[in-house]
């Protein structure tokens, strides 16, 4: 049969050739020895090659350094709170001073255990927690209420209400004192008000209580994670001490008997406070929980929505690895 360059290929021929090609391809692929290929995720486009993260070991010293970093973080928060005017009610100042002493005692103990375990004691706060949790939360707590000037520039939207701009404006949550000037505003301008009386203090105490519960949960986890018997004992001692701290703060915040036991333990709802803060009680669960702890911090936005702050027990990013130093 002569080969005809321009011969037309029928539809039937095309299907036959296509099917044969696919079948042969599959057969060859199935018979191959090395069918593994690259395990790395596929990359699209021209991007730089990612740098592999360093693989720092997590040993007992790292766990103990992390524990002391949590204690120093709590101390930093309490010392900052004492510096903020009115943040700690005067009757609670001796309690806070005692909390600082207790955290320093536990920190010293964790440092000593770290050194006994062959590590270098960590004597400063947890850098990740300070940068990502403590500093932003304290800033939020100290921030003013912000409103937005409306199209009618004599009006402002603040905490979900639209009110006339005045030295004192009345919202559904209470009266707010204006910090900005009362005139010369344009639509969309932000104007500031002082927070409600006691609001910053409420937030600081809620944050302190959450930190104590976080420290409790962290030591509870570390008691299981360590391989050193003395550290296991020390972590449980610290966990029970800080659980007591949390209980005292919960009662101070919510009062008695309201602060004793979470209504959830008897099947009831736990509504937030009138200012939208999440209530945390002295006893909230049957067993010590290590799940995340949530509070609200700072004033509500123009729609009265408050920022959630979530505290979590130490994980890969909060561990204080042996390669870290306090002055780094």
């Amino acid at each position, binding site marked *: 049969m002569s080969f005809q360059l321009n011969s037309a290929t029928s539809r039937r021929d095309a299907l036959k050739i296509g099917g044969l090609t696919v079948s042969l391809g599959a057969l060859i692929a199935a018979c191959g020895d090395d069918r593994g290929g690259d395990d790395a995720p596929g990359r699209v486009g021209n991007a730089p090659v990612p740098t592999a993260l360093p693989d720092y070991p997590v040993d007992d010293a790292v766990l103990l350094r992390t524990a002391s970093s949590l204690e120093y973080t709590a101390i930093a928060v309490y010392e900052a709170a004492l510096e903020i005017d009115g943040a700690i009610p005067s009757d609670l100042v*001796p309690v806070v001073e005692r909390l600082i002493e207790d955290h320093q005692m536990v920190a010293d103990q964790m440092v000593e255990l770290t050194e006994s*375990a062959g590590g270098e004691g960590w004597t400063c706060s947890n850098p990740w927690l300070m940068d990502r949790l403590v500093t932003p939360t304290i800033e939020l707590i100290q921030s003013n209420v912000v409103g937005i000037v409306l199209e009618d520039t004599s009006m402002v939207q603040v905490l979900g209400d639209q009110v006339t701009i005045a030295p004192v404006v009345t919202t559904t949550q209470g009266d707010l004192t204006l910090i900005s000037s009362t005139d010369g505003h344009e639509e969309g301008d932000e104007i500031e008000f002082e927070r409600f009386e006691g609001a910053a203090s409420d937030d600081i105490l809620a944050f302190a209580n959450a930190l104590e519960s976080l420290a409790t949960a962290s030591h509870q986890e570390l*008691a*299981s994670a360590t391989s050193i*018997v003395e550290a296991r004992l020390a972590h449980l*001692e610290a966990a*029970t001490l800080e659980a007591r701290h949390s209980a005292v703060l919960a009662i101070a915040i919510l009062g008695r*008997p309201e602060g004793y036991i979470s209504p959830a333990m008897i099947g009831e709802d736990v509504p937030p406070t009138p200012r939208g803060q999440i209530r945390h009680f002295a*006893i909230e669960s049957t067993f*010590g929980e290590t799940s995340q702890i949530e509070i609200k911090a700072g004033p509500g936005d123009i729609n009265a929505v408050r920022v959630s702050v979530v505290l979590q027990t130490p994980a890969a990013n909060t561990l204080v690895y042996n390669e870290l130093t306090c002055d780094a």
Partner: protein
Amino acid sequence: MDLEIAEPATDTSLSRRRLVTRVGAAGLAGLAAALLIDRGTLVSAVGPEDRPGVPTDADNVLLAQVMTIELAVGELYRTAAEGASDDLAMVADVMASNHRAYAEAIAGATGISAGAADPELVADNLDAFTGSTTEALTAAHALEQTAVATHTALIAEYESNTAIALTASIAVVEARHATVIADMLGVDDLDVLFGNDQSPIELTGDDA
């Protein structure tokens, strides 16, 4: 890390005297032992990856004793709740349920039936728990503190991850119980609210 790795305890046949000695010694050391660390003498057991997951026979001996204590405390609270005012009854009910849950959790972890409460503990405290509110709260505070001290002393003895984790999760809530009860008693001494001067219960043997 340069630590001597001790072999996990394989001798699970603890004698009564040895058990009492071990727990008693840990208890007497108490807080002070945890705070005064003799450098270079840290005892390394095994990490969580190498520990048995479920309680060992030695753990079961201790946990069986703890279970009877938790049942006893729960029973005492239940008795106190029956004649108490509303607020006190609610607190006593919750605490009774918690202690009962601890006993059940131990039963679940060990496979040991949640049997009878420690009769001696019940007998020793029944009058106080059925007495005045102050008497009941005072006795309850002492018992919660004792329970925390007992768990704390025992956590150094356990060999399995379950026993360690369960004990830690119980002790932290019992510490909260104690603080709440102290507050109900009107205590404002921070040493009492934050401290614990109770000794652990001396376990009486391995035949529970």
